[in-house]
């Protein structure tokens, strides 16, 4: 395989190392140092994809991050990756890639049918056509999405691993071109800790594109290696290649992605991560990201073989690739002339079409000398060729530049270079909240002012002259080093051969043969297939603001985020509206600057490390006994223990019945536990609970409700008084964290004078809860030093003792209404305690049960679960829990709000029980309680079902509900509507369904 377009010498490639690769099923050869794009161009492959909407053939347009067209499907199987930019993809041996958005092949693409009807599918077509009829859209959407689009995700787990790194530095330099190198060197000389990052595989930036430019009396390429060796001598400067700074956030917090082993090929990274995500906090930031060339908006400017003029130069000088040997370069500025000269030197025939009227530049002489024909005041009106440029058609421009005049001339060529000026890469500066100002003369937004500690240098500061760039970078480097607290040094001085630019001519739309609306397509956003007429259509339809324009035409919304299209789009809209560009405004640049793999952002936080999964000390037993888990807050709790193929319903019915018949045991270790001490502990608890705790005797427990200041229930639990100045509080599992933080908040900000010490001890204790008539019998077998007699150890007290030698605190509290013991032991004994209980309980057929059975058992007794039966809008009175609200205390959190008109009114939603007429109907939780018997609109909703279960102990389904004026409805019927459209009749009853007298509490 010959590399037809490879130059005999030159470039930063290693010609000794051939690499073979496969593109669209064909084998090619490239060199080490190539990108996929340069290797394809070396093999004369221009056509690399089909466009997003019209399926037009597209070629490689640039040589870097701004590439809108050359997005490829890289590799297959688990290493597959869609939308990889061929211009940034370093070639490795046996690389395999495919074109995207085409079927069956890039040359013969069925979707290209869209091209034929493109006149009828302008911006907004799909929405206008399908949206008025939503059903139609729902049907057609999947087909439309299939024809429009980019690559395909593999749908497989990512086999690579990614790393994450957080660093703090004095100076971060983003961009390793000449400006970045000088900045880093000077900042480094101050002694500052400097990090220099560049997205390319080697430092040098623009210097790699123009290696023969003279800097400090040397060729740029030699000057760069000189600078790098100077920087390498400074231990305090870290140089990171292949690393894109993608985000700039508050307080100089930046993010970057380093492609650590991507260039070695899929799966060849070894023990190293594929990519590394950097989180950087820098005292000072220097942005040296350069500038991006803008495309020129002439007709058919998207044909394969039309590329940015500077990219032609990059391919020649950096990769030794002449992408075409018969080149037409069209420009409105001087920089393209350098590309023309380099192409000529590389052996190409070159013609320049300059839209400017009068050319005074010394460059004109230079190119004329070499025999390059320059057509001034002329423009391309058509590009011929289907899969590759064959010729351009050129006409003279009218005086005002609004139309083309005179004879049409055809110039044959196989490559077109275009340049319509430069856009400073101000993305990061803008993300940093930097303000931009418009430079009318040079038609660019340049940095103005920023609240953060940031400086822009070189191209991204709008400084296009190389001498100015280098000296400004040197001064900025020293300044950044000094401002970050390092010594002051004198800035290095530099001199580059300068060129005096002749001002550009700004024709945002290059006129064609016909008026623009009837002319061939002039693309401004290549990746999203948006044309100049789309912008004008948006204007006519009133989408005038840039935000509307962007969404209507999808300009700038593709993966390149409009790097080449934004300014052109703004300018055209400004022209349409008769405003200046700053008056039209820009949209906000948002991170990431360039496309980033989700894998890099996720880093190690995948799989098991994705989220904290808290497990109790008894977890090993639950696991080995086939427990089914449910997440509760951060915890995974055993939900039920199915036996012999039971489903949840069957298992829960069995567990519920067994607990009330004999004895059950539950792992309650997840319960929030807070240790509260200090001489004001009682006083403090009186303020955070609705009832009184200062009067509680040592050795006793009390159930308490916590309200927020609005008077609404937000947590509950039992608190025990261990001694005079020591309480042990329990909270709900999910509420433990927020209750703890709330207590600290109240203590520290409202009552700092109180002597209270609050400590979370949730993880310090494992808890097993014995419930059921036989629980005392089981406990007595393993606990010999606590008298379990009801008189000696009454309900709502606790005792300390030992259980099979384990120190334990046993609380006689109950969430089931049964005789119950809540056994707390130091967490490390949790599993042993559990095993002892199971062993001791064997003769009573002890039944381990999970959270689901706990829910049924407590519902049978009408006990609330905060967050299930309550929703932050219920007072204790709404729950029928007036008994827990102290009338004596002058103050507690929430008390004052009881007197508010809305809180104290009659007929609020109240907590009641429901019994369905048909005892076998289990109402769905969340079902609406309605006035009418049918669900024809409009029905009044009176409330909803909060909890609902089949109660085997009652032999009837039971439900708890919140109903407006529910207390007064007791004994009456209500209707409950389900989502399936059924309506059930139910009686409003008391919330206690089982053991109404509460006799079972003492066994």
């Amino acid at each position, binding site marked *: 395989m010959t590399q037809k377009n490879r130059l005999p010498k030159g470039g930063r490639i290693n010609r000794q190392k051939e690499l073979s690769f496969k593109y669209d099923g064909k084998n090619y050869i490239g060199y080490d140092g190539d990108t996929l794009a340069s290797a394809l161009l070396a093999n004369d492959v221009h056509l690399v994809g089909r466009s997003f909407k019209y399926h037009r053939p597209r070629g490689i347009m640039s040589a870097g991050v701004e590439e809108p067209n050359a997005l490829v499907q890289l590799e297959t199987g688990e290493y597959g990756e869609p939308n990889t930019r061929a211009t940034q993809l370093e070639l490795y041996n046996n690389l395999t890639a495919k074109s995207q958005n085409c079927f069956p092949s890039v040359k013969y693409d069925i979707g290209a049918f869209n091209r034929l009807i493109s006149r009828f599918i302008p911006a907004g077509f799909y929405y206008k056509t399908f949206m008025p009829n939503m059903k139609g859209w729902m049907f057609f959407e999947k087909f439309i999405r299939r024809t429009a689009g980019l690559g395909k995700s593999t749908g497989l787990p990512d086999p690579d691993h990614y790393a994450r790194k957080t660093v703090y530095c004095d100076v971060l330099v983003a961009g390793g071109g000449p400006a970045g190198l000088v900045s880093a060197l000077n900042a480094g000389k101050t002694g500052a800790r400097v990090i220099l990052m560049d997205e390319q595989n080697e430092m040098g930036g623009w210097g790699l594109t123009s290696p023969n430019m003279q800097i400090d009396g040397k060729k740029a390429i030699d000057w760069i290696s000189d600078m790098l060796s100077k920087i390498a001598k400074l231990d305090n400067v870290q140089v990171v290649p292949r690393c894109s700074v993608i985000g700039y*956030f*508050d*307080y*100089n*917090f930046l993010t970057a992605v380093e492609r650590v082993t991507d260039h070695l090929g899929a799966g060849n990274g070894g023990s190293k991560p594929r990519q590394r995500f950097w989180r950087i*906090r820098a005292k000072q930031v220097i942005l040296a990201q350069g500038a991006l060339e803008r495309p020129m908006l002439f007709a058919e400017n998207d044909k394969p073989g039309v590329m940015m003029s500077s990219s032609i130069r990059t391919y020649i000088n950096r990769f030794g690739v002449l992408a075409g040997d018969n080149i037409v370069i069209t420009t409105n500025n001087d920089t393209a002339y350098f590309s023309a000269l380099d192409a000529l030197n590389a052996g190409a025939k070159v013609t320049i079409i300059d839209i400017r009227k009068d050319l005074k530049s010394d460059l004109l002489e230079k190119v004329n000398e070499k025999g390059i024909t320059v057509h001034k005041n002329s423009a391309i009106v058509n590009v011929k060729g289907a899969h590759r440029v064959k010729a351009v058609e050129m006409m003279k421009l009218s005086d005002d530049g609004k139309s083309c005049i005179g004879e049409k001339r055809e110039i044959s060529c196989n490559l077109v270079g275009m340049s319509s000026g430069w856009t400073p890469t101000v993305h990061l500066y803008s993300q940093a*909240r930097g303000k931009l100002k418009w430079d009318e003369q040079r038609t660019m937004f340049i940095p103005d002012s920023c*609240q953060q500690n940031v400086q822009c240098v070189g191209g991204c500061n709008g400084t296009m002259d190389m001498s100015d760039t280098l000296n400004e970078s040197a001064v900025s480097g020293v300044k950044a080093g000094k401002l970050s607290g390092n010594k002051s040094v004198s800035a290095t001085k530099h001199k580059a051969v300068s060129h005096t630019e002749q001002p550009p001519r700004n024709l945002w739309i290059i006129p064609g043969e016909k008026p623009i609306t009837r002319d061939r397509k002039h693309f401004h956003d290549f990746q999203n297939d948006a044309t100049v007429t789309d912008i004008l259509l948006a204007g006519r339809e009133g989408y005038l603001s840039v935000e509307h324009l962007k969404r209507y035409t999808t300009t700038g919304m593709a993966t390149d985020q409009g790097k080449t299209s934004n300014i052109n789009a703004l300018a055209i809209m400004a022209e349409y509206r008769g405003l200046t560009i700053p008056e039209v405004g820009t949209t906000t640049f948002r991170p990431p600057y360039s496309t980033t793999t989700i894998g890099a952002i996720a880093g190690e936080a995948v799989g098991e490390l994705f989220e904290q999964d808290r497990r109790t000390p008894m977890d090993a037993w639950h696991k080995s006994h086939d427990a089914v888990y449910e997440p509760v807050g951060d915890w995974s709790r055993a939900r039920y223990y199915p036996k012999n193929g039971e489903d949840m319903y069957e298992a829960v019915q069995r567990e519920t019945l067994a607990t009330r018949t004999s004895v059950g045991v539950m792992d309650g270790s997840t319960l929030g536990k807070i240790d509260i001490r200090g001489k004001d502990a009682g006083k403090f608890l009186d303020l955070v609970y609705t009832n009184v705790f200062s009067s509680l005797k040592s050795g006793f427990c009390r159930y308490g409700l916590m309200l927020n*200041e*609005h008077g609404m229930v937000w947590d509950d639990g039992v608190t025990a008084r261990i001694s005079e100045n020591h309480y042990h509080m329990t909270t709900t599992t999910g509420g433990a964290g927020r209750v703890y*933080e709330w207590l*600290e*908040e109240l203590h*520290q*900000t*409202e009552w*700092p004078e109180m002597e209270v010490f609050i400590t979370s001890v949730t993880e310090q204790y494992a808890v097993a809860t014995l419930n059921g008539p036989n629980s005392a019998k089981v406990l007595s077998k393993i606990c010999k030093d606590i008298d379990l007699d009801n008189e000696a150890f009454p309900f709502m007290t606790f005792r300390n003792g030992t259980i099979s030698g384990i120190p334990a605190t046993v609380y006689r509290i109950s969430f089931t209404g049964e005789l119950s013991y809540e056994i707390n032991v130091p967490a490390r004994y949790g599993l042993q305690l559990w095993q002892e209980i199971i062993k001791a309980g064997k003769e009573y057929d002890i039944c381990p049960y999970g959270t689901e059975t706990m829910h049924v058992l407590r519902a049978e007794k009408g006990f609330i679960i905060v967050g299930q039966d309550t929703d932050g809008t219920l007072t204790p009175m709404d729950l029928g829990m007036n008994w827990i609200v102290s009338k004596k205390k*002058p*103050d507690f959190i929430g*008390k*004052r*709000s009881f*007197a*508010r*008109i809305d809180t104290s009114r009659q007929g609020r939603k109240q907590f009641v029980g429901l019994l369905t007429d048909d005892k076998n109907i289990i109402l769905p939780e969340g079902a609406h309680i309605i006035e009418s018997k049918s669900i024809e609109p409009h029905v009044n909703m009176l409330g909803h079902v909060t909890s609902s279960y089949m109660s085997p102990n009652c032999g009837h389904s039971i439900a708890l509900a919140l109903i407006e004026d529910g207390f007064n409805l007791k004994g009456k019927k209500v209707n409950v509507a389900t989502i399936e459209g059924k309506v059930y009749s139910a009686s409003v009853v008391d919330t206690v369904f089982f053991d109404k007298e509460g006799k079972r509490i003492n066994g």
Partner: protein
Amino acid sequence: MLYVRDPYLNEMRDQTEYHIRSEAHKARPLEPSKVSDKDWGDYIFFFANTKGIHFERWVNFTGHRKWFNVIRNTVTDEILATYRPDEDVKKIIADLGIDKKDIKVSGVLKKLKKKSS
């Protein structure tokens, strides 16, 4: 991501170590039962919601768990000062040279009996 001087550690820390709660210097009335419905409503429902200089409460929830106050410009997200509840806020405001008329806090502050925090 914001970067704050933790007034207890006296060093710069990342925002992710903190929870941010509502307005600072909004003391709970000493005797809520004596506060009118309107003032109570102001206390629990109404906040300064400033565009500009905002006094707010932060808590370190990953380490020492102490509460402190932050003066932040809600427009620029610049943090002007951080201080412990026992520090003299008047002096901090004076040191920063903030004009009194730029300070907007909940009206309730003036009416309710203030406490040290």
